[in-house]
């Protein structure tokens, strides 16, 4: 009994953390800048590869993961200045540019690093509840997803940067008139979004096989969560991930992975039909 109850919680936590971690970076960039970052999966892949490379070079895993996150964030900021900035008012073109970027990143990695990369073993071992074995590291991932949500909340609600960012988001022209540097806010936002994608990769690096196209295995979940969540990370991503995780966990458990995946997508269609602006749009409307 205990084992089964914990098993449901564990499955939910597992899907929830996958959705939150894979979507957070995408949601920040979309919510802040209106840019749909098609290279999101490749920022995740970058986090994975840097983590694995620095780990093999001898760094302890947490430090290697920090490297993966930072490198992705830095690359994100540089790309924002070089590629995204000239396209602020051309959302479709920025979509195209980031898509091209993702192709270059995937193929570039294939050419430079090769088609496979040695993996990292999952740390932490397992534990047992009611006769079932569970992975300790999966619980670490769940904790990390909660920390990411807390970090985003504190960043946007409790810091000066957060005030500026929300001001730019609501009315960029007025914020600029009051002395907020829009381009600086955007570069930082893009860097934070890319960094969170890198963090997702860094965290999942020890649990997956590493190939240049691995970013794609996060993409569906990331986009689905952002679409259901709407443009606000705080009000959108977390409830969207929770709702989708409940749907998917239930269907996975009772009918298997295929139905779980189909059910997830049907749930998305239904939610979008009822709440066209996603959870955050709906919550914002109720408040006003």
């Amino acid at each position: 009994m205990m084992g089964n109850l914990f098993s449901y919680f564990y499955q939910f936590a597992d899907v929830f953390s996958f959705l939150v971690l894979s979507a957070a970076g995408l949601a920040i960039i979309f919510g802040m800048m209106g840019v749909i970052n098609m290279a999101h999966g490749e920022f995740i892949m970058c986090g994975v590869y840097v983590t694995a490379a620095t780990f093999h070079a001898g760094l302890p895993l947490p430090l290697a993961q920090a490297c993966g996150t930072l490198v992705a964030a830095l690359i994100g900021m540089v790309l924002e200045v070089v590629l995204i900035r000239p396209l602020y008012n051309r959302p479709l073109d920025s979509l195209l540019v980031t898509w091209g970027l993702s192709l270059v990143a995937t193929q570039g990695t294939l050419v430079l690093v090769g088609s496979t990369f040695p993996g990292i073993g999952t740390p932490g071992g397992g534990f047992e509840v009611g006769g079932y074995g569970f992975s300790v590291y999966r619980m670490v991932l769940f904790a990390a997803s909660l920390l990411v949500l807390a970090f985003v909340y504190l960043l946007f609600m409790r810091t000066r940067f957060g005030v500026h960012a929300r001001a730019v988001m609501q009315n960029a022209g007025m914020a600029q008139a009051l002395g907020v540097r829009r381009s600086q806010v955007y570069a930082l936002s893009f860097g934070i979004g890319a960094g969170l994608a890198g963090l997702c990769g860094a965290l999942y690096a020890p649990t997956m096989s590493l190939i240049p196209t691995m970013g794609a295995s996060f993409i569906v979940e990331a986009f689905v969560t952002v679409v259901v969540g709407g443009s606000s990370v705080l009000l959108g991503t977390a409830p969207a991930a929770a709702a989708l995780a409940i749907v998917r966990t239930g269907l996975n458990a009772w009918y298997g992975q295929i139905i779980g995946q189909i059910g997830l997508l049907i749930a998305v269609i239904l939610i979008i039909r009822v709440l066209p602006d996603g959870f955050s749009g709906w919550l914002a409307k109720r408040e006003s």
Partner: protein
Amino acid sequence: MNRRSLLLGATAAPLLGLGHFAQAATPIKIGLLEDISGDLASIGLPKLHGSQLAADEVNAAGGIMGRPVELIHLDPQGDNARYQEFARRVLQRDKVDVLIGGITSASREAVRPIVDRLNAFYIYTNQYEGGVCDGSMLSVGAVPEQQLSTLLPWMVEKFGKKIYTIAADYNFGHLSSAWGNSILKPLGCEIVGEEFIPLGVSQFAQTIQNIQRAKPDWLYMLDVGAAQTSFYEQKNAAGVSLPMASPVKIMLGFEHKRFPPGVMKDMYAAANWFEELDTPGAENFKKRWRAKFPNEVYVNDMGYNAYVAVMMYKMLVERAKSTKKDDIRQVMAAGDAGIEAPEGRIVIDPKSQHCSHVMRLISVDAQNKVSTLKDFGDIKPYWLSQVGCDLTKSDPKEQYTPDHLPTR
């Protein structure tokens, strides 16, 4: 984006004093469709290398009937629509003499109708779920009666009768799972769980729980693609340690070269080729391969089969004294068409146009070391002729399965 590499191995011929003859002769063109980018790139690259090595060796030895071999390689990137487009292109525009390649069964079935319609000759180089009875196709990889009829009964005897199957959700996974059931159930086995996983899925917490609930004696693994192999790492982290059997791990996906030690522990497979094979023929072959491709992570069975395919084609054309499909089929129908391959002598079965193989049982230990446990010897591809496929008499161009047999 599409890569087109024209590899004229004929450059070696003039050096050997065969220049005049080889240059004067029109080359024999081999159309090659192998994924060297996309999700399956890691296993597709050794296939391209195998074909290139074979072409070099054939050309260095004077070509096929004095004609040099020219490889025309296109990279379909794991996309079945591209497979069809490129198959049409090499067959119709480049007018190749033979088409070789394809990784997944889905890509083979995408290409096969085009080959049949254009009356071309096609060599499929992978081990697969078996059953294709098509006069236009020669299969040089191992099939279930070679890989599964050897491996699965051994697993049952050694580990027990409760089995959990995890399979990729497309034709290979479904058919190989049906194959497993048709071998396991007569042995009194119980399939305590059977899961089909969509390609690209990388998270397996639920599957791991289901396995723990069902308490099998061993796992029958038919997962495909890099995303799905994340299962092994995740299963170990959850403390699930069960023996596993698979027709596509180790010698094909070389997981023991890519994952840290322990992840693939207790994986068992039956293989016609694996790089750890140490017969004199195999050692010599590996030396030649490593001289040409020193950075190869692993010489896998697909790459080996791709090499064998070109050598087999050379033998067929030289015996037929022609590149016409009908003449080649007459040679295959003789029943003794074979070559001395690095694994041992392999011969084409005239009724099914599949090859016999020398099969060996291998396993991986906690240190990622591969050892040979048993030599099954020469195993013929008997299943198709048993159920009534006889390409010397008729050509149904069908794929048969245990659930879909020819009507007699």
